[in-house]
């Protein structure tokens, strides 16, 4: 499937970027599962959402740029929008968690120890 005219170094770079990005994302998911409290977990996926995503986007851009023989930076869009929107979810989620802890468990996480 891979177009034959992709230079070897580009092919390898794309592969490495992709694996690195995927690895970071995977790590983020591991963190999501491994951390003990919600407030810790919430940090983990940002690995994938920032650097992991950036690496894979870079891989994709690189690949298509070489494959089509011209600059194809459109995955940048994904990068920008994901960066802008992920915080929205996380902020609301953290706020909701804080509130739920306060109301339902009678704990104010912001004042005491986690």
């Amino acid at each position: 499937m891979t177009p034959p005219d992709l230079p070897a170094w580009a092919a390898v770079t794309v592969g490495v970027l992709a694996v690195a990005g995927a690895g970071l994302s995977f790590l983020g998911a591991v963190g999501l599962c491994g951390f003990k409290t919600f407030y810790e977990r919430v940090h983990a996926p940002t690995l994938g959402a920032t650097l992991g995503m950036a690496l894979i986007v870079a891989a994709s851009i690189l690949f298509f740029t070489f494959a089509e023989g011209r600059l194809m930076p459109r995955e940048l869009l994904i990068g920008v929008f994901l960066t802008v929107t992920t915080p929205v979810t996380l902020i609301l989620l953290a706020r909701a968690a804080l509130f739920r802890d306060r109301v339902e468990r009678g704990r104010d996480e912001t004042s005491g120890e986690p």
Partner: protein
Amino acid sequence: MSQAILLWCLTGAQALLAGAMALAAWRVVRGPRAQDRVLGLDTLYLNGMLLLLVFGVRAGSSIYFYAALIIGMLGFAATVALAKFLMRGEVIE
């Protein structure tokens, strides 16, 4: 050779991302609380989108880009709604 490496790398990346999705799904299933599940879903979406990007590279086709773009631009609407529901008990006030 480089093509083979690329293919292997991409497959590996896909496997990692699928694994990440599985882990995220585990969090969604496991909870324990609603916010954990929503966070898990958000992660699921994120990794799903990345998987689509890698799939596009693997397939050598830009046809799949829009699916990824839609997750990137609009996927958050679902998780925002969930988070807002958690926070306010209502999505639209």
